[in-house]
């Protein structure tokens, strides 16, 4: 029996993959399923959850103004920050794709904000930069614009400070763009120049089409991460989502429901709605990609 087991190659495989399988079941599958269960319950952590059916979902869609506010804030944030960030990343990638001395240094320097970007420290730095005595106001003062509004405390501008923060963290997208740019054969550009195409035309007719799979990849990745943004909003608004709920991102509202008001069931339901919505948006982006993404090898489609 034992020797039979020993001879069985599968066992070795299972043993080696056990850490992942067990980890997946315990830390991923179990929490996912229990959060699905909680989303149908009223659960305040103090008492055991009680089944309420669809009540959480009903309340969310019909009877919670703040929920919709947070949805609109999040959509605003995603729609503004993702394209800006990608455009910025592409622009910097194009600049860094030149062969000049010390380019490695520049690349590292531009990647730096992304390395430290998600952290609490940067968000705190941001409150200093956009505060009433902050860097932005000092810079404006140099140009003769004297103001002491706090950009973070003003409901009209608070979300834009977060969007700026997101755009500033373009590094990882830039790196992927850069790799994509390196992959475009030089001959194409040379051939186009010979035919008299100028730089703008070369960019739109060669670079963009050949880069489109990379753009798709970045777009999806950044859209998902933008939907899940939490730390900057939490730190900049001190966990409140203010002023006037203008920075109340979806994940922040979810967090408030869970940990300020102890409504775990409701928060779990919110998480599931988010999952479904992000899933749908990702699918839609994939579907539209047929129209604008060009693969060099047609066979793979």
């Amino acid at each position, binding site marked *: 029996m034992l020797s039979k087991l020993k001879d069985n190659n599968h066992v070795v495989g299972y043993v080696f993959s056990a850490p992942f399988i067990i980890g997946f079941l315990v830390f991923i599958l179990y*929490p996912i399923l229990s959060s699905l269960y909680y989303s149908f319950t009223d659960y305040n952590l103090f008492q055991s959850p009680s089944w309420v059916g669809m009540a959480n979902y009903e309340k969310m869609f019909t009877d919670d103004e703040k929920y919709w506010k947070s949805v609109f804030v999040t959509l605003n944030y995603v729609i503004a920050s993702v394209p800006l960030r990608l455009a910025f990343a592409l622009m910097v990638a194009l600049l860094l794709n030149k062969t000049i001395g010390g380019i490695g240094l520049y690349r590292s320097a531009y990647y730096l904000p992304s390395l430290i970007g998600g952290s609490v420290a940067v968000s705190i730095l941001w409150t200093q930069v956009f505060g*009433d005595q902050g860097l932005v106001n000092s810079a404006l003062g140099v140009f003769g614009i004297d103001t002491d509004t706090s950009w973070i405390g003003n409901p009209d501008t608070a979300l834009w400070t977060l969007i700026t923060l997101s755009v500033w963290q373009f590094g990882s997208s830039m790196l992927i763009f850069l790799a994509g740019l390196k992959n475009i054969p030089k001959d194409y550009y040379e051939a186009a120049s010979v035919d008299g195409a100028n730089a703008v035309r070369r960019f739109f007719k060669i670079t963009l089409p050949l880069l489109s799979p990379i753009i798709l990849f970045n777009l999806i990745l950044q859209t998902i991460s933008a939907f899940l943004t939490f730390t900057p909003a939490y730190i900049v608004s001190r966990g409140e989502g*203010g002023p006037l709920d203008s920075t109340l991102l979806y*994940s922040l509202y979810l967090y408030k429901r869970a940990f300020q008001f102890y409504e775990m069931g409701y928060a779990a339901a919110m998480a599931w709605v988010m999952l479904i919505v992000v899933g749908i948006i990702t699918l839609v982006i994939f579907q539209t990609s047929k129209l604008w993404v060009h693969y060099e090898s047609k066979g793979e489609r």
Partner: protein
Amino acid sequence: MKRVLTILLTLALSVSLAACAGGNGNKGAGNATNAPSEPVKTETPTTDDKKEPVTLKIAWWGGQSRHDYTLKVIELYESLNPHVTIEPEYASFDDHWKKLAPKVAANNLPDIIQMDISYLSQYGSLGQLEDLTPYTQNGAIDISNISEAAISGGKIGNELFAFNLGSNALLSVIDKDMLEKAGGTMPTQDWTWDDFTALGPVLKAQGKILTQDLRHDVFFPFYLRGKNQLMYAADGTSLGYDDDKYFIDFYNMYKGWYDNGNLLSLDKLAQKKGTPEDGELELGNAVSTWGWSNQYILSSTVAKRPFEILPVPGWNENKALFLKPSMYFSISKNSKVKDEAAKFISFWVNDVEANKIIMGERGVPVSSAVKEALKPLLTPEQTKVFDYVAWAEQNSSQMNPPNPIGAVEVDKLLKDTAEQILYNKLSVADGAAKFRLDANKILAANKK
């Protein structure tokens, strides 16, 4: 290629979402019990001496100075009771409650929890806290020098879920020098809100403001008390006041200050950390600050200049002034060492040496013996607070019962509504109506 991408993305997405929704199982569950090194005892026949080593977990909120002196008190206790080891957990107010929530779910609350009145109903009536009455009866918590009035502040019904650590009263702190330099006269104790409003233009001429803000969840209920109204109904299922006129009057007054530039603008207020270090009074930009008496000492320490104390206007209407337990210690239901926890609480409120370290920072001590012993040691600023609370005790009435479950959310709602009013997104009358509607919706969950 594309399909693999889809699968990968979907997986990554669901993993990160699930982690954010359900991954709060039981942080800090695996706390190693730190057995204290008990002094080796010679084998003597006396059996009562030998005490089992005990580990007490205690959690509180506060700023750095509170953390520092609390740790000193713990050290003192440990040196007097070598068999006890205390594991402290401390955080800011908001984080304190966020850390406790998952521990409730994991049935792993610290033995002693610093409790606030706004969370007392939630933790007490939902079965997380031990009734302390037996411990006060069997002497584990010595109450011989503590008045019944002080103790009852921790009761829900007949059960004592939290032990009062000190008394607080509402006050306003006035920078008399600034006021007189601006040409104003120091108001008397019997001042009114109109007197306060009248100071606005005087200070504005000097580029100063009245105060940065008044906490809505504190001062609106206080205003209601003066009108013989309650913020919350006795059964906790709705708001306690029937007429929106009170809301409208109070917020018309508040908006008046704001529109006249007598308060800190909201965009700047949003940046404040709420510590004395960045308070507008302490920085010399505002003539007053409004809050609880135990906060006064820190204010004047930070500002390095003395201030004057006045009662909050309206204190003499309907005996609105009240003494409130500044904070409590509670013992969690899941604690396995409740007797030892009770002894520590008794030590905290009764021991003179310990209170020489605490010096009333958690409110004026509830024990009359401790209060007497501290008197000669107080600084002039501390004396002001002790005197004010003593005066308030004579001129106050019973405080409101603890806020019902859901009050934390209603407090946030009030703040939101007030901000919308100040930003001119809502008229005061509409705000009053909307606040009532939404607050009652939250509180209706308490209906059985």
